[in-house]
């Protein structure tokens, strides 16, 4: 029997101000599955992730069917950190991993564990680096490390590979497949990289003109859509 979805969205309507940006949307994210949201800028992909996190108002239902602890991992598109704030990578990662206030320091054993975690995203040795001194790609990998430990049941990724170079993108994709296929996490990801979507996605939801169309990547990402995206033009009508 197929596992029930970890995330089940039914009849979802999202508003931006008084404007409906998404109406009567439905989608499911299964355990061990990678579900990718695609669509033009401003169509409501990130707002949908925010609604799942309880950070955006919506009507309809968003149900989370937890099997274990019910942890959500999240990598934002923009991390609004003030780059002059003196917070190191170790302190940032320790914020959710130790009870002791990080201003009193991060213990040696904890540091070792954090360095191992960073090694999973190719960032070992960066513990003492201030967050503000990281490049966009490095910061993105630190955020990914933060999201995958402890293993989340649902991983929400908002254009996680946007700042990564080619090598880091490949490592990221391998890691994502490992977390999903081997460890069983359900992944809901926003992406504009159609080649990446084809490589990773089990299911794709195209958000377009307030509606959604879901299915396997081969069916949803048609040649027309790829062309539209490449030209930066509007999407084909669903």
């Amino acid at each position, binding site marked *: 029997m197929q596992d029930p979805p970890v995330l089940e969205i039914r009849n979802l309507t999202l508003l931006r*101000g008084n404007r409906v940006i998404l109406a009567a949307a439905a989608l499911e994210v299964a355990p061990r599955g990678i579900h990718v949201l695609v669509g033009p800028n401003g169509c409501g992909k990130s707002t949908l992730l*925010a609604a799942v*996190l*309880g*950070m955006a108002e919506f009507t309809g239902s968003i149900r989370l069917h937890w099997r274990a602890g019910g942890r*959500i*991992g*999240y990598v*934002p598109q923009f*991390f*609004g*950190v*003030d780059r*002059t*704030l*003196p*917070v*190191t990578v170790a*302190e*940032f990662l*320790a*914020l*959710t991993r*130790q*009870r002791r*206030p*990080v*201003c*009193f*320091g991060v213990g040696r054993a904890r540091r070792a564990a954090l360095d191992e975690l960073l090694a999973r995203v190719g960032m070992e040795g960066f513990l003492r680096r*201030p*967050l503000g001194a990281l490049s966009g790609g490095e910061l993105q990998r630190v*955020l990914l490390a*933060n*999201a995958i430990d402890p293993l989340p049941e649902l991983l*929400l990724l908002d254009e996680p590979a946007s700042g990564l170079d080619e090598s880091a993108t490949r490592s990221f994709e391998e890691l994502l497949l490992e977390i999903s296929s081997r460890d069983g996490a359900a992944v809901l990801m926003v992406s504009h990289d159609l080649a990446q979507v084809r490589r990773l996605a089990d299911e794709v939801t195209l958000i377009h003109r307030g509606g959604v169309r879901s299915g396997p990547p081969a069916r949803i990402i048609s040649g027309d859509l790829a062309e539209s995206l490449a030209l930066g033009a509007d999407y084909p009508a669903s």
Partner: protein
Amino acid sequence: MTDFYAWTAALSERGTLPEVFRYAFFVRGLLAVLLLAPLLGGISHLVVARRMSFFSAALGHAALTGLTIGLLLGEPLNGAYGGIFGFCSLAALAMVYIKRHSALPSDTLIGVFLSVTLGLGICLLVAVTKRFNIHQVEAVMFGSLLTVTDTDLLLLLVLGLTLVTVLAVIYNALLLDSLDHTTGRAAGVRSEFIDYLFVMLLTAAIIVSIKIIGALLIEAMVVVPAAAARNLARTTRSYLALSIVAALAAGIGGLFLSTRFLVPTGGAVVLVLSSLFFVTLVGGWMRSLIAK
């Protein structure tokens, strides 16, 4: 406490301590500063991390209005805590509520609140000065050692310990929420609760500090220590430590200056603090140059 003041006075007479320790009011002021500095220095780095400097300025002005309301309602000049706490809490909660439910930029909103509270405070001040000597009111506006009592010290100790304990418990969640609300939310941080709780803690810290620093200058003590520390700090740990050191140095230095030159304590403290900011600013620049 009388025995303690007698003891410090005796040490002063023997030449062990400076002459100014003969006066109980100075010793009380010093104790107040020693209690206040870690509290304000500690809270200061969170105020700056949460980008609430302007919010703190508005709260300082609200404290002035709260003071006048308290006095008009019959509270004593030396302890108008009810009026200050009531009005500051109301203003702080209203600012956070409207900020969270409005599309207006928060600095615009805070500017509106600052204007409203200041306008109201100045109008009420006219009524207050009919009942009190303006110099007595000035002491609360700009801070004065003479007004600090043993009860104030006790209040400062109890409230300070409570605030530090609560801040220690919520510190990691508070800092994560300051860095990025959504990442905090995904990690289970209740951003709204944290927002309201922190402004109430800040309000309480401001209220217990008003007698020394003054209502109009308190914003400096919850912003400048962190600003000075940020010029040099590289980790959260050093950021907190340097904020506290800056607040302590300014508090003690300002207290001595205030006694020596007979100027309001708050003003003297803020001047020392501002000097520290510029010294650390140059220090930070020099360090960057050397590193290059």
